[in-house]
């Protein structure tokens, strides 16, 4: 009986999406806005590289384990109200993956000396982060279905 309960608890944990404090991704988006604005102003690849690492950890590991997420959890969240409605982590992870793609393109543009590619890729990631931070724009909500239409056979 104990064994069955152990199996059930682990199965439930796997099937239930991990939840996140929704204020965390907005805080992360705020820092991202500053970092990418710095990149666009300076034309430097260094802040883009830093952001790329953040996006990679946030998108492929967990937003909670990426640098900005750790700052939020340890320094900001304890000072905020505990009254909030959690959201599934899938949306923020998806947005981080999109950001990762943008920063990889930007770094590639910087590597080959193509400023236009660099600037466009940084501008897109910056716009998405700014919209998330200021207007609570949900990238996953808006583009996921459109992406499915383009890339998925079942949507054609």
């Amino acid at each position, binding site marked *: 009986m104990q064994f069955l309960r152990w199996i059930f608890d682990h199965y439930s944990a796997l099937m239930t*999406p991990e939840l996140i404090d*929704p204020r965390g*991704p907005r805080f992360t988006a705020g820092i991202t806005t500053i970092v990418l*604005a710095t990149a*666009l*102003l*300076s*034309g430097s690849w260094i802040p883009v590289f830093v952001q790329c690492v953040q996006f990679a950890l946030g998108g492929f590991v967990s937003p909670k384990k990426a640098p900005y997420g750790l700052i939020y959890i340890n320094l900001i969240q304890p000072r905020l109200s505990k009254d909030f*409605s*959690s*959201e*599934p982590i*899938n*949306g*923020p992870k*998806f947005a981080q993956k999109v950001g990762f793609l943008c920063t990889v393109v930007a770094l590639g543009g910087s590597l080959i000396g193509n400023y236009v590619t660099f*600037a466009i890729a940084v*501008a897109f990631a*910056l*716009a998405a982060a*700014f*919209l998330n931070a*200021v*207007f609570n*724009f*949900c990238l*996953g*909500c*808006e*583009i*996921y*279905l*459109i992406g*499915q239409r383009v890339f998925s056979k*079942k*949507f054609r």
Partner: protein
Amino acid sequence: MNHLVILGIVLGVSTIFGLWYRSSRGTVKPHSSTQLTESDLNSPLGTRFTLVQFSTDFCSFCRPTRKLLEEISQAVNDVKYLELNAETKVDLVKRAKILSTPTTLILDANGIEIGRVIGVPKRDQIVDAISPMDI
């Protein structure tokens, strides 16, 4: 082009888009009259209205939308709430021209769409659309 000008353009255009985005979400808007049947929904329709929410796993606002619509459907007579996964109900997504989630369709007793809300609905918008006298 000056880097500051580029930054200004990006933030300026984003702000304009953000203001439009914020104003366009949450309100009931008329749309082309999609009709969804009980066999489409695998469920009976509400006797007066049915609120059909299209969601995905990547949608941060689907949870608060679900919570709000469940509350309203429980408080208002003869209004049913259904939630559909947009990733699996592909044919309905295409027929109803769902582009983002959450999108909530308000169906009458015959399954004909009388309006839709993109984003988290504003409570008073839904209530006014379905039952102005009940709440």
